């Protein structure tokens, strides 16, 4: 099949699935599942085929012209897009298949699968977009899909509020992105991405450095929102209200990765804007450490993974800011696989034991679910950076990049964050696998959904386990796709990374693998409280911004009700009242009527008689 049909198949097959399911199949959830799975499979197949055929020229279709400005939509098919497209399609298909088992009892299955298909369409169209405006449109659509999916169980007030919060916070970022895109428009006159990135005729050559810094900073604001970096990170933990497959897909592997992907996509611009990269580095480092501390104390398995995602995204942005496109993209891809794997495993635990709490899962016999535990171990190891799993290699690249380009402070900060990562990851693992005590099998509670590990849920876990395990070996291919050289590393340079990983695991074992299963932080209650309340950032936001906005909204509401609406109402009442008043002229007195006539005629007679 030629390229055009392939790319159209990749991006539109999910949309067809969404449309068909949403419009026609509300009464046949099984058929809807099948349709959506087919769409996703077609998308994956086409994406793989495109990847095998290698990079080609971009496809552009003219959308409309407005004066001298031409807007296209189309598809960019270079190494980065093709690779990431396969990753997105693969993980989406895994999550969809997994959802068949996870959502088996849910009454609104059709809506769920249709929304997943909608998300896939938006995400793939974003990935392959050739035009910056097109990217922005699909960026927003991805946010919209996230809103719908987080608030999937909308009858739950916490879910509805979490969806709203996610949408509003990412929106704040999106404003920055929109302004940045518009500045691009004003300076370059077009949105075409290859044109913007061209070293001779693109933005870097044509605009002043200050403008470039402004543009990249504005785009970074969007990334902060979408990829949940400090200070717009508080929506991601709340977003765990959505179903676990949604968390696996959106909030670990794909949607939040869209921000990092955008930076990778526009990397030449960021390479040239040094100031922006410094700012990004600082924010990303702060985020990585901040989120890691919050993950250390949380008892909810999904929240731990959510904070972990925020922290790892910080890592990716640190790598990109340090100047290594390869490290950032490598970690993006490996993280997608092992984080999705971890979420799916947590979903299996949650589905079986009907609780999110780490200790309860462990004590109810989590480790008896063998396949899930294996997935958990592999994913956790990859996350912590245990060799030879994929995470180790991608983290290694990050440390190397930081060491070369950014100096000691950030490298040490990254190593500290890696230490914390290993600590909280293995805290999670030990709490589940080596609990203080295990209840006997008959009392393991949970729901009776048949087998604890149905094949629809285990198969994707297995696929992702393999990916997380061996993904590290693909480093060279990834670099080649990016037209970069994969750096070589000596054993010595790998030692610091290995060292912090071992330390982290050891401390985790000391705290949670034996004895009372309480962390060392319990002896520092002030820190413990600080971390568990998210450094009070969310509290601060609520007290200041939310209150301020509510106050402003009620003020404006008052203006509208009393001023504008009331004003119109008063006009109406005024007319009614004047009509009421003038009613009294119709008194029914004949002599009054006659008198009025005489008065008027008399006045006229006087005018004619005396004057005129």
């Amino acid at each position, binding site marked *: 099949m030629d390229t055009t049909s392939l790319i159209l198949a990749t991006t539109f097959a999910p949309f067809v699935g969404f449309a068909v399911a949403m419009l026609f199949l509300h009464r046949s959830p099984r058929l809807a599942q099948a349709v959506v799975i087919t769409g996703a499979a077609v998308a994956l197949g086409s994406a793989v085929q495109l990847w095998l055929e290698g990079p080609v020229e971009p496809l552009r279709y003219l959308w409309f012209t407005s004066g001298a400005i031409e807007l296209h939509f189309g598809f960019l098919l270079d190494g980065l897009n093709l690779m990431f497209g396969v990753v997105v399609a693969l993980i989406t298909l895994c999550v969809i298949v997994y959802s068949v088992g996870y959502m088996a009892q849910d009454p609104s299955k059709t809506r769920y699968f249709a929304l997943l298909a909608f998300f896939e369409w938006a995400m793939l169209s974003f990935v392959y977009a050739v035009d910056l405006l097109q990217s922005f449109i699909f960026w927003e659509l991805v946010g919209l899909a996230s809103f719908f999916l987080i608030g999937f169980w909308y009858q739950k007030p916490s879910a509805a509020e979490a969806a709203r919060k996610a949408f509003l916070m990412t929106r704040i970022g999106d404003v920055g992105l929109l302004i940045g895109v518009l500045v691009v428009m004003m300076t370059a006159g077009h949105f075409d991405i290859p044109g913007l990135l061209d070293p001779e005729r693109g933005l870097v050559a044509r605009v002043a450095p200050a403008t470039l810094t402004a543009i990249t900073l504005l785009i970074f604001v969007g990334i902060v929102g979408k990829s949940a970096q400090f200070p717009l990170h508080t929506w991601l933990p709340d977003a765990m209200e959505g179903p676990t497959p949604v968390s696996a897909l959106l909030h670990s592997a794909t949607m939040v990765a869209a921000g990092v992907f955008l930076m990778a996509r526009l990397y030449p611009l960021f390479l040239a804007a040094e100031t922006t990269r410094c700012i990004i580095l600082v924010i990303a480092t702060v985020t990585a450490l901040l989120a890691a501390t919050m993950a250390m104390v949380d008892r909810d398995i999904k929240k731990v993974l959510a904070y972990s995602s925020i922290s790892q995204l910080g890592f990716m942005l640190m790598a990109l800011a340090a100047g290594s496109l390869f490290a950032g993209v490598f970690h993006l891809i490996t993280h997608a696989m092992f984080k999705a794997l971890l979420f799916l495993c947590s979903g299996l635990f949650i589905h079986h034991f009907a609780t999110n709490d780490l200790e309860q899962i462990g004590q109810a016999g989590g480790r008896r679910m063998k396949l899930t535990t294996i997935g958990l171990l592999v994913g956790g190891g990859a996350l912590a950076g245990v060799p030879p799993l994929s995470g180790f290699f991608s983290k290694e690249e990050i440390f190397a990049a930081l060491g070369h380009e950014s100096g000691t402070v950030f490298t040490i900060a990254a190593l500290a964050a890696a230490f914390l990562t290993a600590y909280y990851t293995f805290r999670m693992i030990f709490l589940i696998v080596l609990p203080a005590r295990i209840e006997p099998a008959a009392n393991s509670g949970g729901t009776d959904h048949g087998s604890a590990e149905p094949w629809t849920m285990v198969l994707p876990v297995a696929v992702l386990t393999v990916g997380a395990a061996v993904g590290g070996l693909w480093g060279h291919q990834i670099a080649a796709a990016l037209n970069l050289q994969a750096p070589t590393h000596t054993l010595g340079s790998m030692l610091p990374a290995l060292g912090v990983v071992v330390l982290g695991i050891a401390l985790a074992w000391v705290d949670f693998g034996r004895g009372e299963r309480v962390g060392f932080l319990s002896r520092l209650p002030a820190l413990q409280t600080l971390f568990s309340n998210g450094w009070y950032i969310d509290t601060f936001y609520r007290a200041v911004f939310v209150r301020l906005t509510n106050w402003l909204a009620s003020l404006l509401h008052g203006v509208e009700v009393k001023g504008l609406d009331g004003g119109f109402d008063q006009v109406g009442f005024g007319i009614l009242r004047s009509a009421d008043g003038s009613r009294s002229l119709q008194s029914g007195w004949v002599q009054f009527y006659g008198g009025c006539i005489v008065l008027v005629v008399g006045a006229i*007679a006087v005018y004619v*008689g*005396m004057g005129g």
Partner: protein
Amino acid sequence: MTAEMIVVGVFVVVAVAGAVMAVRSQQILHNIIGLGISLFGIAGLFLQLGSPFVAAMQVLIYIGGIVVAIVFAMMLSMAMTINPPARNLPKTIFAAIGSGLFFAGLVGLLSKTQFATRPTAGDEAWAVSRIGNALLEHYNLVFETLSVVLLLAIVGAILIARRDKTPA
């Protein structure tokens, strides 16, 4: 001052005095009597203006017929006669202003208009037979229409004033 002028003056005074009495009094009977007096004055003026026939008709029909009918109506609404309602001052002032304005306008118009006068026609033109002839020749239609109107008035008056039949 000729005798003629004195007589005219008397009739004018009678007419105006009667009219004032007709509109001012509280008692309805005084109003009616005032009307009668005024009509007498006007009949005298008609006489002075050269038409004894019309003067006679005025006295006969107007005073003898209409005023008497009004007296009958007054008697049939005895309760109002015994307890006349009080004067409504705002309404009186309102009516006075209206009439005053109108009068001022009329006077102004009068003073500005040049009326064309002709010499008075001879005696034979004022004969009563001429009136009869005119009624039956020139103004025949008006005459007949008037008779129809009178018929309708009689029928209408009877209809309106009829007592409603009580159910058997």
